[in-house]
C-alpha cells in the first residue's frame, strides 16, 4: 500500500515486551490514584495511628515530652471526669432532638414540594438557602435574634404578651435553640434527597392504588413510605453522624455554654486539645468519637445488607 502508517513507524521501536499490557495498566492506575492515596496516608491514616498513641500518653506542656500512661486517659473519661458523661449526654440529647425533627420536617417539605406546581422552585430554593450559607454566619444571625430582652424574638413575643426566656443563657433553652436553628439550617439537604427519592417512584404506583380506592394517607403509608425506606436509612445515618460533628454552629452560638449546657463531643475535643492543651485526654476523646462513628457506620451497612 502506498501510504505508510504513522503508527507502524513507531511500533517497531517501542514494543517494550518487558512491560505487559496488564502491568502497564496497573502502573498507570497507581499513578492516577497516588495523590489521593498519599494524601490519605499522610492526613488520615498516619494521624489515625498517631491519635491512638497520643491517647495512651500524657503530654507535658513545659517539657513538650510525652509519657506513656496506658489507659489512664480513657479511665479519666469513662470513670473519673464527670464532664465526660455530661458531654455524652449533651451529644445524645442533641442527636435525639435533631435527627427526628430534621427528618420529619424534611419529609413533609419534600412531600409538599415534589410535585410540579407554580412556586415549587421558589420554595425549594428558599428551604435550601441556609444549606449553602456558612454555619458561622447562620449562628451569628440567630444568636442576634435570640438575645435576651432586646432580642428580636423576645420583642415579638412581648407583643403577644409572652415573656420569652433569655434563650442562650439558660442551659435547656440554649440546647433547644441550637437544635432548632441547626435543623432549619440543614433540613434543606435532606429535603432534596427525599424529593429525589420521591420523584424516582413511578407515577403508576400511586395511580394504580388510587384506582383501587386507596386514600392519600393509605398510599403514603403502604406505598410511598416503604419505597422511601433505603433513602430514610441513608438520611438517618448521615444526619446522625453529622450531628456528632457539629462544631462551628455551637462554637459561634453558645460557645458550649451556658454552664456547659451545649458542650458536645466535637466541641469538648477541641476544648481539651486546643484550649487546655490536654493532648492525651483529647486524643482519648477522639478515639471514643471514632468508635461511635464506626459503630454507626457498620450499623448502617448491616441494615442495608439486610434490606437487599
Amino acid at each position, binding site marked *: 500500500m502506498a501510504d505508510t502508517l504513522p*503508527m507502524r513507524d513507531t511500533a517497531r521501536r517501542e514494543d517494550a515486551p518487558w512491560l505487559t499490557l496488564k502491568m502497564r495498566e496497573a502502573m498507570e492506575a497507581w499513578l*492516577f490514584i497516588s495523590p*489521593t492515596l498519599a494524601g490519605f496516608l499522610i492526613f488520615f491514616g498516619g494521624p*489515625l495511628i498517631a491519635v491512638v498513641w497520643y491517647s495512651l500518653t500524657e503530654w507535658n506542656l513545659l517539657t513538650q515530652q510525652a509519657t506513656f500512661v496506658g489507659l489512664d486517659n480513657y479511665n479519666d473519661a469513662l470513670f473519673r471526669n464527670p464532664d465526660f458523661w455530661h458531654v455524652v449526654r449533651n451529644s445524645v440529647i442533641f442527636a435525639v432532638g435533631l435527627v427526628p425533627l430534621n427528618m420529619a420536617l424534611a419529609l413533609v417539605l419534600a412531600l409538599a414540594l415534589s410535585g410540579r406546581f407554580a412556586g415549587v422552585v421558589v420554595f425549594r430554593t428558599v428551604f435550601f438557602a441556609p444549606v*449553602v450559607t*456558612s454555619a458561622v454566619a447562620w449562628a451569628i444571625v440567630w444568636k442576634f435574634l435570640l438575645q435576651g430582652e432586646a432580642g428580636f424574638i423576645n420583642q415579638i413575643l412581648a407583643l403577644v404578651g409572652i415573656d420569652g426566656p433569655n434563650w442562650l443563657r439558660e442551659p435547656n433553652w440554649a440546647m433547644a435553640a441550637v437544635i432548632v436553628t441547626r435543623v432549619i439550617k440543614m433540613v434543606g439537604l435532606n429535603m432534596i434527597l427525599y424529593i429525589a427519592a420521591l420523584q424516582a417512584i413511578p407515577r403508576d404506583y400511586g395511580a394504580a392504588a388510587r384506582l383501587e380506592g386507596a386514600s392519600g394517607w393509605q398510599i403514603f403509608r403502604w406505598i410511598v413510605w416503604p419505597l422511601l425506606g433505603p433513602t430514610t436509612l441513608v438520611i438517618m445515618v448521615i444526619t446522625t453522624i453529622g450531628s456528632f460533628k457539629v462544631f462551628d454552629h455551637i462554637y459561634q452560638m453558645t460557645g458550649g455554654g451556658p454552664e456547659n449546657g451545649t458542650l458536645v463531643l466535637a466541641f469538648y475535643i477541641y476544648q481539651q486539645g486546643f484550649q487546655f492543651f490536654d493532648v492525651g485526654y483529647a486524643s482519648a476523646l477522639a478515639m471514643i468519637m471514632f468508635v461511635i462513628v464506626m459503630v454507626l457506620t457498620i450499623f448502617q451497612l448491616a441494615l442495608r445488607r439486610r434490606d437487599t
Partner: protein
Amino acid sequence: MTAFLTRRRIRIINQVCWTVALCVAAIPFVFPFLWMVSSGFKSAAEIFGSPSLVPREWQWRNFIDVFNHQPFARQYFNSLYIAVIVTALTLLVSSLAGYALARMRFAGAALIALLLVTALMIPEEVTIIPNFFLMRWAGLVDTHWPLILLPTFGPQGIMATFLMRQYFLALPRELEDAGKMDGLSRLGVWWRIALPMSRPALAAVAIITFLNSWNLFLEPLIFVSSLDKFTLPLALSNFTDPYGTPLWHLQLAATSLAVVPILVVYIIAQRQIIESFALSGVKG
C-alpha cells in the same frame, strides 16, 4: 356534595392551603437573611431598639468600619483564593483517582476503595490533633497550607472521588475504547474523553468543594492565628470589642458582605447547585 365543591375547586382550595402553610414555614428560613442585612445598616444604638425591618437611619458607615476593624478585605481575599485552589486541586485529584477506581484493573483496587470509604465517614475532629502536630512539625502552622491540604485530601476530597467514580462508571465505555484505538494514552483518554463527558459531575464537585472551603471553620480556627491570614468565617466571629462582646452592627454588616454574594450566585444557579447536592447525597 354541593355544586360549589367541585373537584376543581377542592383542588384549588387544597393548593391555596398548602401554599399558605409553606409561606409560614418559610419565615424562619428567609427572615434571618433579611434581618441580617437590615441590621447591618443600623447604628449600634438602633440595633436593639424597637424592631423594624427598614432601618430608620441607613448607616452606610458600618460597611466602611468593617474594613477598619480588621483587615477584612485581605481576609475576604484569603477565603476566595483558598476556595479556588482547593476546588481546582480537588477536581484534579479526585477525577484522577475516581477514574482509576472506575475504569482500570489493578490488584488492590477493592482494598483501596474500602480504605477510602472508612475515611469518608470519620469526622475531622478525630484526626485534627495529630494533624496539628504534623503541620507544626512541617512549619505550616499559621499558613494557609493546612486549609488547602486537609480539605483536599480529607473526607470532602474522598467524597468527590467517589462521586467522580460513580459518574465515570456510567459513561459509555466504547467511547474510551475508541480513544485508545486512536492512540490516546490513559491520561489522554481521561483528559480528552472522560472529563469532557463528565461536566455535570465536575460541576457538582466544584460547587460543593467551593462552598465547603468557603465555609470551613474548624481548620482555620486551629491553624491560623494572624489576623491577616484569617478566612471569612473566622473573621466574622472576630467582630467583638476587647472584652469579647459582639459589635453587632459591624458583625452583621460583615456577615452580610460574606453571605450575600454567595446567595446571589445561589439564586442564579439554584437548579444546578441543588442538583449537585442531590447527586452527592444519592450515592452516599
